[in-house]
């Protein structure tokens, strides 16, 4: 025999509502209100589970979150790879399979449950709805506080059975606190009927009324199906399930007698109670049970289910009793997983023979049995034996006392080390039924007294939680924001290929009629060099720097002087870190005596603004300067190429575009195509170029206007790849591509931008460090491969001598490499040790497919005199 349904009763189920589900391919009858575990027990399914490592038959061991055996995969009506059968209510048509220890995701993207995330703020959060949790929650709500109560079961217990709810309390049932974090931040996983919900709760105070877990006892073959924690039998009676017809109780506490009485009252038989508690208890309805004082369970028999238990008494007496259920109770251990995960302390209490909480954060308190109010009668964790090889401690890891002894023999003393050597406590249940036993076994093996060291630490999440629940809505297209510019619809329409630049989607190139990337980039580059091209540069970071001290401030932030910039003019600037390394670059436009607009790299916008604010707020609060981000205020069209002036003119503007009235590195405010605009002559291609800034909501129309006006001049939209080629041909570096945080202005050959005659600026002092002035630092150079078609991979290492033997001394690396339509060949930029002095020299890039021989050149291979910028 195994478990069966009681004739009547069971407040947790509704006998008027029979349902059925499938377990390992067999149809199983249940009632609404059954858990998967209670239904498996009610149907007397033998050996429903297998242990993960040894493949031993296993049964349901508990009725809660500590379950170490009964793990299932749910495939209908939703998919969940692994979950404790004790924690899931059966629904009609559910399809369930046993899963020994390891869940598996499926490749065919099965249907997950609906998921939502919620944030909530409360004055009081209580975890656990038993007596000790219910009343503080009720009282706080009565005082008008916002209170949430988290309960892992469907009903609110209050300690009296039945479902009680107090007004003003928000109840989360079928919910588990996954983790506690600093200052009362708690994550809760709610397994609601209709969906899974992940709560982010911020609580002023948290009360843990998490109760206690019944302590198992390790003895030979204590893992056989039919062996179960004592309390669970009472739980299952609430589901109308008698866990066995004939039950033996093995207990170290008197309280288990009530369990026996409960079974008899519901039609079960209890022939014997083996009791090592040393206390007298009332048998109640179990008056026929033979009480065997000082007797222990020394073994079990049975194939697929428990058939008998071997008992051992004082003086070596032995008996074997036939039974189909063995209830075990070693006592109770406070459930302190959440307490310990936030750093709460433990101490061993000799009165209650258990680890109890001590020293926690001020906003957190522990009450009731979790706080140590546990009715333990004896310190009893395992049955002494000659052979410990089948005294199972961690069922999920199939680890025994013998396994622990091996690690202690090997010299391990700390439970944290034993845990890592045996994996005890590392399975899904985090060792809830094995942690304390393991600690006490180690203590005993070391000859130390009980409580000498406590169980290993627990970590969030407290129960398995699907990744899909943690992800919530932040998956697929919402995994990370996709930032787009106002011109994005045009780029899509034109079939652009996009590149991710941080969160931005930027057009990479605009292929025509399925042309390959190489061809498209070549066409776009040639358009800029021979006619005109337009690029969406809206993602550039933009900051307005305003105030009487703005000129002095920018002099301190950039390596060159910005204070003598004339209103209406533009200057390129480099920004260094305190270490003297290049941090960002951009241009400054002087809008007024006390107002600049500075641009940053696309990726550097937030960093630079934070840095401005940090210096202003912490070092120079005396400077009268305010900084405001305007990155998204302005959409920017870059128009580059010898015909750029004609295109801007054709677009229609009241700005005088003549070379004399509008020289390089100046700007004018005016109207373009009827839109208020700022026109700036800056160039990142070396060609005649205009940047057109308009308020963002005019971005799309101005882009369309430029494209329409440019058509007669052969305008082509170009993307970031062509932009990279064009700037590299001119030796313009990209911060973050040609630099990596270890590159100085001198390394880049940009001494011209470092003004040592002005006052101090950030990074200046570091430029005198001995390491920074070494002549053999890696320095920026250009590279021409001997084979004009050979394209060096970016990141390729360079050597001065190709010895053909590894290792070779490395002299540098390639930072940018392209095919240049303008040069009619491939070329690269690279950082090469002492490179400034090596122009003309041959270097080698040894690659798996063969060595590429290159000539070192100046890093400005195209139009080195800058003749093209004025058109």
């Amino acid at each position: 025999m195994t478990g069966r349904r009681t004739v009547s009763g069971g407040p947790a189920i509704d006998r008027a509502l029979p349902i059925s589900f499938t377990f390992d391919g067999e149809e199983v009858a249940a009632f609404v209100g059954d858990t998967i575990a209670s239904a498996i027990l009610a149907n007397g399914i033998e050996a429903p589970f297998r242990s993960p490592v040894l493949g031993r038959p296993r049964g349901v061991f508990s009725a809660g979150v500590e379950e170490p055996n009964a793990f299932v995969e749910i495939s209908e009506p939703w998919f969940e790879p692994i979950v404790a059968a004790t924690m899931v209510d059966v629904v009609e048509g559910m399809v369930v399979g046993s899963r020994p220890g390891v869940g598996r995701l499926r490749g065919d993207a099965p249907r997950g449950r609906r998921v939502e995330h919620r944030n909530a703020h409360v004055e009081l959060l209580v975890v656990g709805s038993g007596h000790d949790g219910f009343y503080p929650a009720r009282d706080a709500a009565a005082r008008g506080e916002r209170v949430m109560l988290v309960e892992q079961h469907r009903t609110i217990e209050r300690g009296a059975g039945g479902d009680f709810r107090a007004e003003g309390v928000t109840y989360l049932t079928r919910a588990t606190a996954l983790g506690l974090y600093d200052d009362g931040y708690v994550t809760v996983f709610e397994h609601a009927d209709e969906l899974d919900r992940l709560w982010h709760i911020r609580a002023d105070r948290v009360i843990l009324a998490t109760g206690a877990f019944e302590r198992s006892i390790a003895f030979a073959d204590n893992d056989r199906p039919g062996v179960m924690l004592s309390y669970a039998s009472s739980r299952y009676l609430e589901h109308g399930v008698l866990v066995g017809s004939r039950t033996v109780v093995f207990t170290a506490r008197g309280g288990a007698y009530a369990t026996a009485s409960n079974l008899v009252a519901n039609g079960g038989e209890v022939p014997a109670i083996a009791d090592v508690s040393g206390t007298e208890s009332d048998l109640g309805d179990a008056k026929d049970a033979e009480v065997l004082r000082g007797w222990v369970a020394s073994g079990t028999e049975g194939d697929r289910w428990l058939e008998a238990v071997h008992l051992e008494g004082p003086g070596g007496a032995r008996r074997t009793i036939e039974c189909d259920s063995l209830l075990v109770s070693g006592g109770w251990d406070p459930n302190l997983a959440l307490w310990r995960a936030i750093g709460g302390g433990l101490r061993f209490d000799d009165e209650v023979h258990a680890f109890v909480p001590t020293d926690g954060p001020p906003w957190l308190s522990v009450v009731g049995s979790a706080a140590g109010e546990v009715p333990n009668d004896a310190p009893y964790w395992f049955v002494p034996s000659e052979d410990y090889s089948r005294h199972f401690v961690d069922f999920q890891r199939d680890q025994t006392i013998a396994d622990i002894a091996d690690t202690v023999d090997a010299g391990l003393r700390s439970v944290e080390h034993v845990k890592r050597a045996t994996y005890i406590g590392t399975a899904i249940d985090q060792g809830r039924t094995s942690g304390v036993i393991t600690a006490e076994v180690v203590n005993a093996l070391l000859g130390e007294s009980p409580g000498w060291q406590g169980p290993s630490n627990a970590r969030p999440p407290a129960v398995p939680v699907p990744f899909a629940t943690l992800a919530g809505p932040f998956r697929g297209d919402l995994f990370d924001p996709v930032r787009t510019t106002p011109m994005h619809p045009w780029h899509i329409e034109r079939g652009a290929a996009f590149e991710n630049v941080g969160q931005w989607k930027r057009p990479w190139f605009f292929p025509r009629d399925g042309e390959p990337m190489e061809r498209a980039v070549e066409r776009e580059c040639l358009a800029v060099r021979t006619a005109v091209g337009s690029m969406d540069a809206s993602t550039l970071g933009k900051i307005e720097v305003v105030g009487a001290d703005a000129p002095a401030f920018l002099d301190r932030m950039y390596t060159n002087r910005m204070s003598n910039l004339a209103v209406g003019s533009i200057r390129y600037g480099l920004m260094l870190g305190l270490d003297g390394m290049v941090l960002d670059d951009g241009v400054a436009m002087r809008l007024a005596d006390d107002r600049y607009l500075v641009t940053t790299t696309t990726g550097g916008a937030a960093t630079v603004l934070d840095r401005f604010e940090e210096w202003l707020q912490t070092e120079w609060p005396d400077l009268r300067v305010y900084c405001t981000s305007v990155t998204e205020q302005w959409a920017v069209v870059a128009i580059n190429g010898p015909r750029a002036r004609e295109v801007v003119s054709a677009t229609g503007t009241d700005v005088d575009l003549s070379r004399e009235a509008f020289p390089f590195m100046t700007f004018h405010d005016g109207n373009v195509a009827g839109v208020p605009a700022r026109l700036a002559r800056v160039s990142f291609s070396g060609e005649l170029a205009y940047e057109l800034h308009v308020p963002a909501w005019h971005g799309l129309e101005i882009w369309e206007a430029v494209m329409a006006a440019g058509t007669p001049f052969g305008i082509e939209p170009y993307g970031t790849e062509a932009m990279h080629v064009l700037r590299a041909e001119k030796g313009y570096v990209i911060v973050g591509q040609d630099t990596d945080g270890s590159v100085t202005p001198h390394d880049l050959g940009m001494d011209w931008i470092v003004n040592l005659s002005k006052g101090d600026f950030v990074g200046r002092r570091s430029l005198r460090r001995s390491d920074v002035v070494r002549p053999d630092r890696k320095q920026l150079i250009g590279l021409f491969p001997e084979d004009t078609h050979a394209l060096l991979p970016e990141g390729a290492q360079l050597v001065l001598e190709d010895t053909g033997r590894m290792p070779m001394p490395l002299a540098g690396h390639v930072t940018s490499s392209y095919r240049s339509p303008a040069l009619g060949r491939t070329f690269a930029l690279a950082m090469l040790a002492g490179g400034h002095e090596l122009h003309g020299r041959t270097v080698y890039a040894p690659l798996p497919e063969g060595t590429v021989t290159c000539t070192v050149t100046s890093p400005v291979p195209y139009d080195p005199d800058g003749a093209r910028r004025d058109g």
Partner: protein
Amino acid sequence: MTARSPLAERSSDLELVDARELAFVAQIDVRVGPATAASLGFPTVPNSATTTGDRDALWLAPDEWLVVGPGAAGAIVDELARSLDGLHHSIVDVSANRVALELGGPSRHDLLASACPIDLHPRSWGGGRCAQSMFGAAQVLLHERDGMTRLFVRPSFADYVVDLLLAAARP
């Protein structure tokens, strides 16, 4: 030529969550000392907003406010500049730097609580409150006004925010 508001194409999506875009509303970032700000009627209590006529002033930082329409941004800039003439200050037109959304409906705070970590319960949130926070991975400025919640979002994040609102409304 016509300007195009960032969420012009999303109005039917916004209706699903009881929201609409306040297209082209004037927004001016003002940086000035708190005493001067108080004299202009700006709020000095952190995370609060005042409304004078139809114009709002939202507290962003001890020395930073966002002034929100109606009317032309240029006129508001000129008016503020006259008031602050001779004082250390910064006035920047940021009207296009953020999209303004207005959420109505009784469950709007629940909807926001799906991805916004701040406390939107009436106990700590209500008319005249504003706050800078996150909605999912997007920075947002929230302003409770006239029984509605305004959300100010960078335009590049606007589609993300609308998509996340829709996802939260039907998980």
